[in-house]
């Protein structure tokens, strides 16, 4: 009887102490992650699993951000926790999940698509707000009527993330050199709203509304992305309704919404090479129907790809790249809820048509390229890319 009473006393005294200890450890973990450059941090414990969701906005590299979460969680040494489930949540949207043992070295766990962020409760950072300042190098090279025309400068852009998954954006191009229109030294870039949601473990959706000065369009588009199996394969759809948009003599101009876009995509990723092949087809921007093949390879965070589009007898080739920026230098700024761009995206077009000298001629196989969408949120945070970074056999 005495022994039984003693055990009850120990249990009674021990349970609150352990809960307090966990609470303190979660608070310490959230603070640690915030101070190291993560935003939108949320941590909770369910059973023996520590659930953490965060956006490593100060890292510019989701892989390093995830490594920081896992190693920080291990350092907190929370009693009773032996598994970490870390979810990468750019702009508050879960896109990537890592599950591993707390004692095991990173990256010995499993990568998968993100889904629900984590159980309710737990601890989270106070700030659910982030202003991202993007100042990429802007350059355009070549047009249908002149393949060597060129302009370059800077494109300051502001992104505002008032709620999870909702992103407002506005930007402007400032030219240091402009052969398209030598008298113009500035032009509005993209302005609008992007809404992104994970509808399930496999299905993600993104919708964009606004005026897109870089592509000289206004309108709206919807994207769906459905991953299959271990996320190596995916199906995608992009549909939109656009009108022409221009800026001349300091005045905006626009036409009716008369350009319909409806494209369907199948993608397959090769983990050892960190390369992805896309096959896409459907109705392009100017009413033409065509098919395209694209191969993209990641060199760590540098992305380079080649695209060939055949549409109604016209061939267009594209070279595109996304160059990483800033890297670790953004961590200090991220503490003040200000983000820096992680990558510059650029595309060069190689057209098979002769020089028309007609600025009104329409390119075939064309789709808007610079519109913020699913890629703005997900970036390089795909399970295949992370498995490739993790090394062979993972």
């Amino acid at each position, binding site marked *: 009887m005495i022994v039984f009473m003693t055990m009850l006393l120990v249990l009674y005294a021990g349970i609150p102490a352990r809960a307090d200890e966990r609470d303190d450890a979660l608070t310490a973990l959230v603070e640690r992650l915030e101070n190291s450059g993560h935003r939108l941090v949320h941590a909770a414990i369910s059973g023996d699993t520590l659930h953490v969701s965060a956006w490593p906005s100060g890292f510019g590299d989701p892989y390093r951000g995830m490594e920081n979460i896992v190693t920080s969680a291990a350092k907190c040494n929370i009693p009773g926790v032996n598994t970490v489930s870390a979810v990468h949540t750019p702009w508050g949207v879960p896109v990537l999940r890592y599950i591993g043992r707390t004692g095991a070295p990173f990256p010995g766990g499993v990568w998968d698509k993100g889904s629900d962020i984590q159980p309710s409760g737990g601890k989270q950072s106070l700030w659910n707000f982030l202003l991202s300042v993007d100042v990429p190098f802007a350059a355009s090279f070549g047009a249908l009527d002149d393949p060597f025309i060129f302009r370059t400068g800077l494109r300051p852009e502001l992104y505002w993330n008032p709620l999870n998954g909702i992103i407002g954006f506005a930007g402007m191009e400032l030219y240091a050199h402009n052969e398209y229109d030598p008298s113009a030294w500035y032009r509005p870039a993209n302005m609008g709203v992007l809404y992104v949601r994970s509808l399930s473990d496999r299905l993600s959706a993104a919708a964009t509304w606004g005026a897109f000065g870089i592509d000289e369009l206004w309108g709206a588009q919807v994207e769906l992305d459905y991953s299959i199996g271990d996320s190596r394969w995916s199906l995608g759809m992009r549909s939109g309704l656009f009108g022409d948009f221009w800026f001349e003599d300091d005045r905006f101009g626009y036409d009716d919404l008369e350009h319909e876009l409806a494209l369907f995509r199948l993608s397959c990723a090769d983990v050892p090479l960190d390369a992805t092949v896309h096959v896409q087809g459907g109705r392009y921007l100017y009413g033409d129907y065509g098919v395209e093949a694209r191969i993209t390879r990641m060199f760590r965070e540098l992305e380079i790809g080649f695209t060939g589009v055949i549409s109604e007898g016209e061939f267009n080739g594209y070279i595109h790249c996304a160059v990483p920026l800033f890297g670790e230098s953004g961590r200090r700024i991220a503490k003040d809820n200000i983000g820096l761009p992680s990558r510059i995206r650029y595309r060069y077009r190689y057209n*098979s048509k002769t020089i028309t000298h007609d600025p009104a001629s329409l390119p075939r196989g064309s789709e808007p390229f610079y519109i913020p969408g699913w890629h703005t949120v997900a970036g390089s945070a795909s399970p295949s890319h992370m498995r490739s970074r993790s090394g062979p056999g993972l």
Partner: protein
Amino acid sequence: MHILNSIYRCAALSVLFFFIYVSLPAGAEAHSTHSLYGYSGVLTIPDACVTDRLLGFHVTYLPDHIAPYRRGVSDNHVYTATLGFLPFAECYFSVYDAVDTEWTGNYGSEKTRSPGVKIRLLSEKRLRPALAVGFFDPDVRDLGGEFSWDTISSTFIVASKSLLSDYATVTFGYGLESERFSGENSRLQGLFGGLVYRLNNHLSVMADNDTEFWSAGLAADLRGFSVTCAVTEGQAVSFRAGYSLILPGSGQ
């Protein structure tokens, strides 16, 4: 005496073959060097080497009588980016600038673009050379394209083998002479070949024939920076300078 000479010859040839045989590296891939055109090769010809994740930027000067674009009219400045995009595929993209010409409009001199891809079919083994095919700037007008008349085209198959414990690389290739896919400024139509001999890790001497001209030159490479100087037919001097790096990432 005649028999003795034959024996001496046989012995000398046997020693030579033995020397070449024992010097063959055990399946090592031939070292890639940069041609004057930026892509991997000897001086003016491509080789069968592909280096995965190798990114390079090159600037070349070619005098007018060997320059492919506006030959005999203008020297060429060639700006080239090359990339080992896949373990078996190298891509390049060049802009040829005929600097002594005037273009209508305000764009200075005449220029043309030249993209290409080289695909390695077989990697090098101890006795087997590496084998590759190349599709450099094909004239796609037969496929419905229109913007193709200034192409600096070559469609070829090429083999490369490293010899002498990797100090030398021999390259032979054959370029299709068919007019199909060959544009106005086609090169490498017929049998071409060349030799690279590495004096040390940084310095190589090279010689080749691109079916039109014999060239000989010297290439230096230090910490990714490289320069090539070549003399063609004993008179025309060409230069190339560039920087190459291996991109991080997975693969070979």
